[in-house]
């Protein structure tokens, strides 16, 4: 094994073993400076992918996965200065919790996973107004909006965001998630996709990508379904 592949291997292992301190230490080693930023990002992503698999088969818990996400974030903070600024090719996303929602752990994890997947992400972790979501989407020229709602009392706020976004920014794809929701409900609220957890997030993002653009989208309240006209 070469020195560079040993470093990449160590990074991957540190992410998988939920150890942000080790990632920090590795990135401070002089040898890392010689490695290509994309390779380092690849190692972080690979480690997180493996951790995500373990989360999926329940051999690790969300509490542990959170530390893997922190390890990735730690590596990304070191890489930030070395990465090429967003030249328009990197997809941008605005994520946040629905207005009134206090549970922000899920969205924090989702934003970490999306960053590791190469997205440029703004995460509005605290109770955020609909206007802030819309303004951030416009400011960032984002193509994805992600909103989570854990409590049923915040679903009305989530619906407001979806309606405003569909009306004002019809090209933005909306992904929703949360314990009180499922795919059917997400569709009926006018979202484009549903992410049950970090485990199936890449699949949900792929689904969003494969959807085409449309002319008009509206709710048929009699049938309780969203209608999309292409």
């Amino acid at each position, binding site marked *: 094994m070469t020195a560079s592949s040993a470093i990449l291997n160590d990074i991957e292992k540190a992410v998988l073993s*939920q150890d942000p301190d080790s990632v920090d230490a590795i990135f401070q080693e002089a040898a890392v400076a010689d490695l290509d930023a994309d390779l380092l990002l690849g190692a972080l992503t690979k480690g997180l992918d493996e951790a995500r698999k373990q989360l999926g088969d*329940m051999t*690790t*818990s*969300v*509490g*542990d996965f*959170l*530390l893997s996400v*922190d390890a990735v974030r730690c590596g990304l903070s070191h890489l930030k200065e070395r990465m090429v600024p967003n030249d328009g090719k990197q997809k941008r996303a605005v994520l946040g919790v629905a207005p*009134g929602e*206090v*549970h*922000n*752990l899920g969205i*924090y994890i989702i934003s970490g996973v999306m960053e590791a997947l190469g997205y440029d992400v703004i995460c509005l972790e*605290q109770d955020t107004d609909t206007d802030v979501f819309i303004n951030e989407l416009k400011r960032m020229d984002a193509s994805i909006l992600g909103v989570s709602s854990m*409590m*049923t*009392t*915040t*679903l*009305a706020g989530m619906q407001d965001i979806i309606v405003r976004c569909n009306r004002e920014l019809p090209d933005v794809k909306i992904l929703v998630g949360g*314990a*009180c*929701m*499922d795919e*059917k*409900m997400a569709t*009926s609220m006018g979202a484009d996709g549903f992410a049950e*957890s970090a485990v199936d997030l890449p699949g949900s993002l792929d689904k969003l990508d494969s959807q085409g653009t449309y002319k008009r989208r509206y709710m048929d309240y009699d049938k309780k379904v969203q209608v999309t006209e292409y």
Partner: protein
Amino acid sequence: MPDATTNYEKESGMKIKKILKSVKEKKVPQIRCFPEGMVGAAAAASSFRGKFSKLTPIERLLTTFKHKEPDRVPVVPLANAVARRITGISFPEYSTNPEKTAEALCASVNFVGGDLVVMMIDLSVEAADFGQEVIYPLNSTAHPNYLNPFIKDVDDYLKIKPIDLSTTTRMKGIVRMCEIMSDPKTCPVPVSGFVYGPLEILMMMRGAKDFYKDCRNYPDHVKKACAAITETLLAYVKAQSDTGIHAITIDTLLASWNALPKKVWSDLEGDFTGEITRCVKDNGCLVGIHNCGDGVYFDAQIKAMAPDFISFAQLPDDCSTPREMKEKYGDQITLVGYVHTPTIVNGTPQQVMDEAREQIDILARDGGFVLAPGCEYPPNLSLENAFALVKAAELYS
């Protein structure tokens, strides 16, 4: 130091006194005040009688908890905060005015139906009394102000001390509710008190993200705070059970896959929840667990707490189908659940009834099953799907 025989005599004497007190107050005595054999015989008699006539809610529950089939599956719609809409009180009143809350919960039983009231009010009852700032919104349930957590730094765990129950506001309010609702003239069905486990209380005072990390990085700090909180919780569950209610439900959300690893939960909270459970049982009540997490650790919790029932929203981490869950745990505990929240929020009454029927078909055989939503009935929803749940229990048992 008193020997085991003296302790046994003392405990028996206390239970007899509790039975006499209940009879004097025209209440049904608490189930654990009676010898196990007598309870089993009563359940068998109820099961037999249930074949020919309608049982009372307490008979129905007792029968199913003892794994015998009652006249029909008991149902608990958990229509709690939504009940404020029946009596016309606000969310803040619901959280802070015990008399009005008790009135709303009784109205829920009288209007919607159900066989048990579980007094889950909001997430912040105990945390508020331990000093956490709480927000009481007009359109949602009370919650901690996470921008101002009581535990700002890991050293703050060590500052948490046991508190005197008589100096509390919200916990005393819950005890007051238990007093009001344990009177059968006020509430026609049995009542379960409610208490959050020490870890969840701490999470309310710290915020989930930092708390999960603290559990891994500073377990001794967390454990010391758990010990201090548990001391207060023991007095709290005793005060609830002294009102004559029939069960106490303990919320152990952190014992699930979407929270802490199983071993971490067992190390941090297992012993404390075991201690709380023993106190509840010693004081005559049945013990329930409520855990609306995903991949609930049934095995670890049964080992630590030996509960009578578990109310859950998702399958346990070691079962992939409801049938497997029934086979694995059906003879150890009573399963309480688990109509999915999305079905209740977004489904028609017929869809709710269809899902309930499916669960009754799989889980109700030989007793040990109570139909319920996986978590509290959504507080801002119309009540039609709560009626659908009650109807399903009546139609499909």
